[in-house]
Every structure is written in structure tokens, then in C-alpha cells.
């Protein structure tokens, strides 16, 4: 060991750039986007095409669809790197695995979740969402998305290298998503009941959950990956 401190930021930046390139070039975004619109298309068939009914349900439906889209996107988060040995390389980096994990998840967030969020207003349009509801939907989704991706990564890391990992991840992660959905969709319902103002309380709790998972999830994810690689 030399006494020279290791520059962490360049490594994290390079990691983030690599992951983002992989996410964008790997074609992971398109299936997730397609999934969102397929869900939207199925809703009128299941619930009936009545526009007023769809308008009433649209905010909650968008939250559930977003949640399921994130679940779907988790599948490849660590699996490809596990298969080609990339995860072992992460473990060998001179920085904490937790940091590498955060860089990876940030790339996933920017490369997949943000585009999906950007598509949400269009999906809402198809569900005849009320124009006043678009902004609260986006605000609550944006506040909850970090929690969704962080908690989801715990499940993806635990199931890495396992047969039928996707299904197992869904089973593990769904209970963790319950509080996020409760405060996300619940806060949304409150905001829409009193139009023109956001429910600061629910949004605050949502942000709190996101912040807490931002700090508490990486150690769990790193521990799960270490357990999977040993």
C-alpha cells in the first residue's frame, strides 16, 4: 500500500459513464417503455373505455404502472455484469463497492427511469388524465423514484445469478414498495382532492423514504453482491 490517497471521483465518474453507455446501447429502455404503453393500452379493455372513469383512475394507474415498469427494468441491473465477470472487477476496484453500486444505480436511474418519467404525461394523455393532475403525478413519481430504484436494487442484487431471477426479484421487492406506493399514490389522491396545491406532507414523507433508502440501501446491496460472488 502506498500512502497516496486514491482519487475516488474520477473512478465513479468513469463508472457512471460506462454504465450509462451500456444501459443506452443495450436496448434496455425500449422494452420498459413498450411495457408502460402496453399496460396503458390494456386498461381501457379491462376497465371499459368510459373516459370519466379513466380520468378518475389515471393518477393511481400511472403510479402502479411506473412501479411495475421499474420492477421489470431491475432484471438486467446486475445480471449481465455477473455473467461476464464485470461484478468481480467492481469488487476489485480500489473504492468501496457501495460507491460503485451507487454509480451503477445512478446510471440506471438516468438511462431508464428518467425517460420513462418523461413518457408518463403521454401515457396519462391516453388515459384521459386531467391536465391539472399531470404535475402532481410527475412530482410524486420523481420524489419516489429514487426509493423505487434503490429498494429494487436490493432485490436484484440478492437474486443475482439465480434461476428465474426476475420473478424472485419481484417477490422480494414488492413488499418493500408498499410504503412508497402508499405515500406516492395516497399523497397524489390528497393533492388532487384539493386542486392547485401539492400535499407537502406526503411529498415530504416520500422524499424522506427516498433519502433514507439512498443511504441505507447501498450497504445492503453491496453485502448482497459480496454474498453472491463469494
Amino acid at each position, binding site marked *: 500500500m502506498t500512502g497516496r490517497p486514491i482519487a475516488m471521483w474520477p473512478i465513479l465518474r468513469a463508472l457512471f459513464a460506462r454504465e450509462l453507455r451500456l444501459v443506452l446501447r443495450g436496448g434496455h429502455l425500449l422494452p420498459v417503455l413498450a411495457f408502460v404503453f402496453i399496460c396503458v393500452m390494456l386498461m381501457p379493455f379491462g376497465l371499459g373505455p368510459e373516459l370519466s372513469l379513466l380520468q378518475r383512475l389515471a393518477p393511481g394507474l400511472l403510479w402502479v404502472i411506473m412501479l411495475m415498469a421499474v420492477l421489470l427494468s431491475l432484471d438486467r441491473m446486475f445480471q449481465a455484469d455477473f455473467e461476464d465477470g464485470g461484478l468481480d472487477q467492481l469488487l476489485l476496484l480500489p473504492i468501496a463497492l457501495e460507491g460503485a453500486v451507487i454509480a451503477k444505480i445512478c446510471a440506471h436511474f438516468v438511462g431508464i427511469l428518467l425517460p420513462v418519467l418523461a413518457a408518463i404525461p403521454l401515457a396519462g394523455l391516453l388515459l384521459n388524465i386531467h391536465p391539472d393532475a399531470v404535475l402532481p403525478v410527475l412530482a410524486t413519481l420523481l420524489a419516489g423514484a429514487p426509493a423505487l430504484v434503490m429498494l429494487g436494487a436490493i432485490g436484484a442484487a440478492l437474486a443475482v445469478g439465480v434461476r428465474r431471477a426476475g420473478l*424472485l426479484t419481484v417477490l*422480494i421487492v414488492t*413488499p418493500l414498495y408498499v*410504503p412508497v406506493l402508499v*405515500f406516492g399514490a*395516497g399523497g397524489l389522491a390528497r393533492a388532487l382532492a384539493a386542486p392547485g396545491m401539492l400535499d407537502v406532507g406526503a411529498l415530504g414523507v416520500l422524499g424522506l423514504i427516498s433519502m433514507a433508502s439512498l443511504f441505507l440501501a447501498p450497504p445492503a446491496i453491496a453485502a*448482497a453482491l459480496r454474498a453472491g460472488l*463469494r
Partner: protein
Amino acid sequence: MLERLENLSALYANPRRFMNLAARVHTPLWLVAVGVLAFGLFMVSGVPDDYQQGATVRIMFVHVPAAWMALFAYSFIFFASLLAAVLRHPLGYLAARAAAPVGAVFTLVALVTGALWGQPMWGTWWVWDARLTSVLVLLFIYLGYIALWEAIDDYGRAARATSILAFVGFVNVPIVKFSVDWWNTLHQPASVSRFARPALHADFLYPLLVMGVAFLLLFLAITLTRLQMEVLRQRLRVRQSAG
């Protein structure tokens, strides 16, 4: 203090010593559990009908202890995993694995008896009440935990991964409870008063406590049997891998 902890971790750390102890305790534990259960059921049969609920109030004596055990078993899994992860007690992971299906079944019993009780009382099998919903989430946490054990072939890997999930789930349970309470009061404040019932009379309380002890003993007995099985299975694994 530290020395004490180390003594604790050394306690029955040798699986053979544990198996000897388990073999001695096993039958008496089962006999006591069945005996207390029989006594509890006898007490329940003597409980007077509730003036509002009639005979259906007796469902409570299965329902409430099952719900207690659903939470107790999960805490058991958490502390067993903690014992294994922190103090390296070799039986901790096996004990957590042995307890998981038992806890899941108690959770299912709580849900099913709750539905059977809810039908005559509330006029519906299921309501999206805070308590029902959080117990349903608990069931899915159990199922995910069990599925993770089953999905990973390598024992050491499975043990570490499931213990991480046990810790995460243990943090998650109170958060779910809190959030679902908030959600419930948001959507159906009026129905809560329908669930309110008068504080328990002694006629009901003592049989309930006896049934609670009976369910606890049953949990311990079943888990002990399953733990013995897990230790044997572990020995089999070692033998097979040794050729």
C-alpha cells in the same frame, strides 16, 4: 459483556451437542405443547357466547394467537440471522430457515380465520383495512424469504443472502404498518369504529392467553423438529460433497 456474548455464541455451537439436547427435549416439548393446546381448547369451549357476536367470537382464540405468532416468528428469524451473522453461530441460519415456513403458515392461518370471522361480523370476507393489509404484506415477505432460500443452491451463499433479506424485511415491517395506517385513515375513517370492540372480559382474556402460550409452544416444537431436520440435511450435504 463481550465474554458473555462469546459464551452465548459457543452455546450449542457444536451441532452434535445440540442434536443430543434436541433429542432429549423434543418429545416432552411436543407433549407439553399439545397438552396446553388441549387445555386451551377446553377453556375456549366453556366461554360464553358474546352478546353481539354470538358463537363466532371463538374464532378469536385461534385468530389472535396466530397473528401474534406471525410477528413472533419473523422476529425469531431476524434474531437467529443476527446471531449467525454477528456471532457466527452455526445454527442461526438453519434455525431461521426452519422457522420461516412455520411463520408463513401462522400468518396464513391469521388471514384465513380473519376472513372467516369477518364474513359474519362485517358482512365481507376481506376489507382493505390497515391491519389486514399489513399482515398480507408480511405473508409476502415470508414467501420472498422462503423463495430466496430455495432459489440458491449453495448453502453459504443462500445463508448470507437470506440473512440480508431478513434484516431488510425486519426494518420494512414497521414502515409498512405505519404507512398502511396512514393510508387507511385516509380512505375509510368511518369503518374503524365498526371494528372497535369492548375491552376483553376476564372470561375471554384467560383462554386467549392460554391459547397464546399453546401457539408459542407449538411454534417452538415444530421449529425444533424442522431444525433437527435441517441439521441432518446439512450433514447429508457435507457427506455428498465429500463424495
